[in-house]
């Protein structure tokens, strides 16, 4: 394996770890708000690392640019959708979980 391949492999693995952590958060966290925290932040980072890992293997500059654009679009989408879900939850009167509550 070349150095680039090893670096790409490490980046892809790091990305997978963050996706895993985000999914664990989604399952473990107590309410809609805390789950959105986990999804928005951890998955954004996971996708970022996977994008970087793939960037090292990109066959052409155009493909590289496409990968960066995919990440930026996913960032904008997850932030916006996260906000919309959280706002709707609050408008519907879903009270945030507090540290004394049962999970």
């Amino acid at each position, binding site marked *: 394996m070349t150095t680039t391949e090893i670096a790409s492999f490490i980046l892809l693995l790091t990305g997978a770890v963050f996706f895993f952590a985000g999914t*664990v958060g989604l399952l473990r966290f107590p309410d809609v708000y805390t789950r959105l925290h986990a999804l928005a932040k951890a998955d954004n980072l996971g996708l970022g690392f996977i994008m970087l890992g793939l960037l090292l293997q990109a066959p052409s500059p155009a493909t590289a640019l496409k990968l960066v654009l995919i990440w930026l679009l996913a960032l904008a989408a997850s*932030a916006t959708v996260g906000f919309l879900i959280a706002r709707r939850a609050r408008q519907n009167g879903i009270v945030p979980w507090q540290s004394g509550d049962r999970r």
Partner: protein
Amino acid sequence: MKLSVAAVRAFLWRSALLAALWWALTDGRADSWGVGSVSILAAVSLSLRLLPPVPTTVSRIGLLRFAVFFFVQSLRGGIQVAWLALRPRFSLRPAIHEIPLRLPEGIGRVLLANTLSLLPGTLSVGLEGRRLCLHVLDAAAPTEVEVRRAETRVAHMLGLKLEET
């Protein structure tokens, strides 16, 4: 639409950006530019209608500083929330904070609200006028300091003036 310097500049900038996008999407194939130039022109005119050019310009240094700030902070945010999810002991102390924004009405506020959802410990749950509603993972964290920092970066990038609250 009145043809102003701002409009011409916006037209040229947006055309260039969309041309770069087309180039990336088609992997630079020469035979795609016929359809491409028509699509780019249509997209630019639509974008000028939906988002009319404003005379303010994005500061390049501000954009760079915002990008660095955003990368570092979102890395922190992701690591923090991943750790909270994976650690065996469960330790969340969520709260809702309401913070009056100093940014003027418009795209700055929306950008800040979206950015904060990706930064450590904060999630935007409402934005009415200048009142931003945040859900935080740790009630004791210095949320307001972080928000003010992000707010300053956004204002600097977009060339906006912060108002007193």
